C-alpha cells in the first residue's frame, strides 16, 4: 500500500465533525460510564479499596486470595454447573418447539402465542411465581406429584441437591420465550429445500438434521453466545429466590461479587472478581467464534 498522506478537504472535516457530534452521546457515555470506571476498577483491584477509608496498593493479593477463597470456588462451580445444563437444555427445547410450530400443523397460531408467554412475563414477578410453584408443601409441582401418587417429593429450592436443578427447569421455561427468534430464522429457509429432500426420500428426522439445523445454525450460534453469557451472569434469580442457599448451593458468581461489594464494601476484592469474570467471558466468547467455523453455516459460503 502506498503511504499517501490522507488530506481531507475542508468539507470532509466539517462532515466528520457533524458525525462526531451525532455519536458524541455514546462516545461520552462509553468514556464516562464504561471505559473510565473499568480502568479505575482495574487499578483498584490491586488495592484494598473500600470507598471510604483505605486505598492502599496490595499488588496481586486480591487475585491470589480469591483462589483460596472457598466461597469463590464454590460460586465458580455453581455458575459452571448452571451454565453447562441450562444453556444446551434451553436451546434444545427452544429449537424443538420452533421447528414443530413451523410445520404446517393445526393450531399453529395458538402454539405461537403460548410460546410468546415466557418472553413477556418477566421481572421479579416471575421469580416469585417460581418460588411459589416450587413450594414444597403448597406448590403446584409437589401437589401434582402427590396426586399421581408420588409422596417422596423433593424440597426443590430448600434442598441443596435440588436447588440448581430447580433453577435449570425454570431457565428452560424462560428459554421457550426465544421460539419467536428461531421461527424468524426458520422462515428464511426456502421451502424448495424441504420439497427436494422429501422427493429424495429423506425422512423428517433426516430433513431436520441435514436441512433445518445447518440453515438455522447462525441463529443457534447467536443464542449459544448470548445464552452462555447470560447464564454466567445470572445471579438475580438466586438473589431473589434462594438468597444463595441452601448451604451456598446457589451462590452464583455475580451474587458473591454483589455481596463482597455491597454488603462487605470490599471494592478492591470485588473489582478483582469483576475483571476475572471479564476474562472468562472474553475467553469463552473467543473460543466460540473460533469453533463456530466448524459448524455454523452461512448461506452463499459454499461448501
Amino acid at each position, binding site marked *: 500500500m502506498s503511504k499517501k498522506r490522507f488530506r481531507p478537504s475542508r468539507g470532509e472535516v466539517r*462532515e466528520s465533525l457533524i458525525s462526531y457530534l451525532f455519536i458524541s452521546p455514546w462516545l461520552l457515555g462509553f468514556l464516562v460510564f464504561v471505559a473510565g470506571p473499568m480502568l479505575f476498577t482495574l487499578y483498584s483491584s490491586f488495592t484494598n479499596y473500600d470507598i471510604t477509608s483505605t486505598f492502599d496498593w496490595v499488588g496481586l493479593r486480591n487475585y491470589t486470595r480469591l483462589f483460596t477463597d472457598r466461597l469463590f470456588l464454590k460460586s465458580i462451580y455453581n455458575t459452571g454447573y448452571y451454565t453447562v445444563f441450562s444453556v444446551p437444555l434451553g436451546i434444545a427445547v427452544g429449537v*424443538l418447539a420452533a421447528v414443530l410450530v413451523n*410445520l404446517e400443523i393445526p393450531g399453529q397460531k395458538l*402454539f405461537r402465542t403460548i410460546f410468546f408467554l415466557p418472553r413477556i412475563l418477566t421481572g421479579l414477578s416471575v421469580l416469585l411465581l417460581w418460588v411459589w410453584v416450587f413450594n414444597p408443601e403448597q406448590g403446584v409441582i409437589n401437589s401434582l406429584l402427590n396426586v399421581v401418587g408420588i409422596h417422596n417429593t423433593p424440597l426443590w429450592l430448600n434442598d441443596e441437591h435440588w436447588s440448581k436443578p430447580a433453577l435449570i427447569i425454570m431457565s428452560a421455561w424462560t428459554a421457550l420465550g426465544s421460539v419467536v427468534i428461531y421461527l424468524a430464522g426458520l422462515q428464511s429457509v426456502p421451502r424448495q429445500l424441504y420439497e427436494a429432500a422429501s422427493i429424495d426420500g429423506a425422512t423428517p428426522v433426516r430433513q431436520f438434521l441435514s436441512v433445518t439445523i445447518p440453515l438455522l445454525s447462525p441463529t443457534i450460534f447467536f443464542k449459544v453466545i448470548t445464552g452462555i453469557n447470560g447464564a454466567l451472569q445470572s445471579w438475580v434469580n438466586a438473589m*431473589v429466590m434462594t438468597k444463595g442457599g441452601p448451604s451456598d448451593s446457589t451462590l452464583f458468581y455475580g451474587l458473591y*461479587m454483589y455481596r463482597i461489594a455491597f454488603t462487605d464494601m470490599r471494592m478492591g476484592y470485588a473489582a478483582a472478581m469483576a475483571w476475572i469474570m471479564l476474562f472468562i467471558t472474553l475467553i469463552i466468547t473467543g473460543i466460540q467464534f473460533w469453533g463456530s467455523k466448524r459448524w455454523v453455516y452461512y448461506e452463499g459460503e459454499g461448501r
Partner: protein
Amino acid sequence: MYNVARSPSALQTSARRRRTATTWFWKGIAVLVLSGISIFVLFPAVWMLSTSLKTNAQLFSGEVTWIPRPAMWSNYVKAWVSVDFTRYTLNTTLYAGSVVIGTLVSNSLVAYGFIRHKFWGREVLFAILLGTMMIPGMVTMIPQYILFSKLQWTGSYLPLVVPAFFGNAFYAFLLRQFFMGLPKDLFEAARIDGAGEMWIWYKVVLPLSKPALATVALFSFEGAWNDYVGPVIYLNDPNLYTLQIGLSMFRNTSDVTWQFVMAASVFIMLPVVILFAAFQRYFVEGAAVSGIKG
C-alpha cells in the same frame, strides 16, 4: 423397476399418498409434543392467576384447585393497598418513561451519526461499540456505583436515568442496522433542498423508522419497568421505591401471603404484557432485522 406394468401416473399417486400418510403421522406427533410443551409453559401462568384468587384456606387445603370458588377478586384491592403501590406505580412510570425518552433520543442520534457519512475512525469506533455489548453488566456495575457515589447521586434516580441519555451499544446497533436499510437518496434530496442534519434526523430518519424505534422503546421500557438490582442499589428513600421493590417487600415478612404476591405480580406485569401484545408486529420485525434478543 418392479412397477413396469403400472402406469406412471398410478405410481406417482400411490407414492404421494404414502407421503401424505407419513406427513400426517409426523404432524400428529408434532402436535402431541407441542401440547406437552404448552402445558409446561402454561401451568405456572395459570397457577399464578388461580392463586391470586384464593383464600388462605384454599391455599393450604393441599388440593390442586385451578379455578377457585369463590374467586376472591378482593385480593387485588388488598394487595394494592397493603403497600403503597399507587406511589410506586407513579415512580416506576416516570422512571421507565424517562429511560425510554433518553434511549430513543440518544441512540437514534448515535445510529444516524454512524450511517450518515464516512468519517475518520468510524470502523474502529463501531467495532468498540460492538465490543462493549460483550462486557458483562456485572463488570460495570461496581465501577459505576463508585462513580455515582462519588458524584453523590446515590439515593436518587439520577444513576438509573442519566446513563440512558448517553447511548447503549445494543440499541444503537439495532437502530443503525435499520437505518442502513433506508434509501440514502432521501437524505441527499433533503440536503440539496438545504435541510440541516438535525432536520433530516427528525423529519426523514425518525418517521421512516417507527418499527425499529418501537422495538427499542419496548425493550427499554421493559428493562426499566423490571429493573430490580438498580433500584435496590441506588434508592434508599421509601418514597422513591419502584414496583419491583414494592413486590419484594411481600417477601420480607415472615409468613408470605402468596395470594397477594400473585395478585400484585399480575398487575405489575400487565403493562408490559399489553405493550408486547400491542407492538408484537413491530417487535417481530425488529427482531428479524437485528436477529437479536429474546
